């Protein structure tokens, strides 16, 4: 069985670095990291990762627009919105648009990996 592949999309290079460090010794393979929503959609089309971690608040093309475009390409894709904004309104908007889940920052490595494992089990079930 192959390891689940992960694509991270965040305008913050710091967050991309932290997530890569969190997943370094785990079973999850970070196969792409993008800082721009438009480029991320193109990259998604090429590599079709198992899980997409997508920042909500991004300059230029927003996380919500990026989410819609990814879902238009593949309605079954697993997209997790990641944000420091965890208001009920934001969570509801993301989930009703089609995001699989929502993860509020900051989070520990332990909780993050446990979250991804739960998600992966759900995908494979």
């Amino acid at each position, binding site marked *: 069985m192959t390891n689940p592949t992960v694509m991270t999309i965040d*305008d*913050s*290079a*710091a*967050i991309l*670095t*932290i997530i890569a*460090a969190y997943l370094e010794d785990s079973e999850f393979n970070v196969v792409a990291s993008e800082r721009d929503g438009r480029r991320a959609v193109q990259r998604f089309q090429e590599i079709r990762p198992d899980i997409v971690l997508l920042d909500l*608040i*991004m*300059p230029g093309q927003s996380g919500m627009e990026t989410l819609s475009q990814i879902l238009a390409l593949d309605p079954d894709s697993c997209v997790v919105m990641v*944000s*420091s*904004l*965890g*208001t*009920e*309104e*934001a969570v509801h908007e993301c989930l009703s648009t089609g995001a699989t889940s929502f993860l*509020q*920052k*900051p*989070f*520990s*490595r*332990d*909780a993050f990996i446990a979250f991804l494992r739960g998600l992966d089990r759900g995908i494979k079930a």
Partner: protein
Amino acid sequence: MSSMFFGQFLLEKGVINRDALLDAIERQRRANHSLTEVAVTEGLIDRGKADQINSLFRLSNQSIEVICAAEGGLSLNQIEQLRKKQRLGWLRIGTALVAGGHVTERQVEGLLEIYRAREAAERRTLEEDFDHLDDPIVARACTELTLSHLQRVTEIPIKLRSIERADGRLRDGWRRFAQDILGDHAFCIAIDLPMDLFSLVASKMLGVEVSPTSDAALDAGCELVNLIGGNTCTRLEPSGFRLRPEPPFSSGGLVSARPIRPSVRATAQAAEQELELNLFMKK
């Protein structure tokens, strides 16, 4: 009004000089050990695991105890025993000053009493200062989250010194990281850091030493204010606010080009360094 640590209070009173304070801090640094260091000394974890736990602690919102249990495999009983051992050997600043021959025990006892009374009075004044602001709920939420996130990242005790109306200016040589918050209220959160403190924040967030002028460091500063801004919106939602953060930015770009406007400024102390939070309210 201002609030300060006991060592700074003694310095201000002229009881000790700067060299004496630095000597006492160094004595504390040598004598006081973190929870993970105590765990290494007790043979419960190795150095590599301790570094890993410390690194995760800086990046997460969980307590060091929770991370020690999850990552270090320590039981709650073991952690409690480690905390007891840590407290037993803990050197306070007053004791460190006595050990260095800078003050007498009697002086420390007397001054500590005055310091505690003054601190209690200043805490009350700080609360009143918040209440006199136009948006005390917003100012309290932003200030508390700024201090708690900075303390978590830097592992330095951070103390609020004052909250007041100000001119919103960024101090020379400092870095500003800001984020506009929009919605039924509109304001801008700006975290102002001196270069040394900013350098520490960036290095701790990224887990590696970085130059404060590097893009990676600026990005880490932006992520810090992004955490504070997003969490502020979340914190204020139960109070009826409907807020949404915009992408963060740093000084040297958009901030310096903006007109300087009146702000609500919270000044805090992180060890020897000051930092500021400026809130620009948009009517």
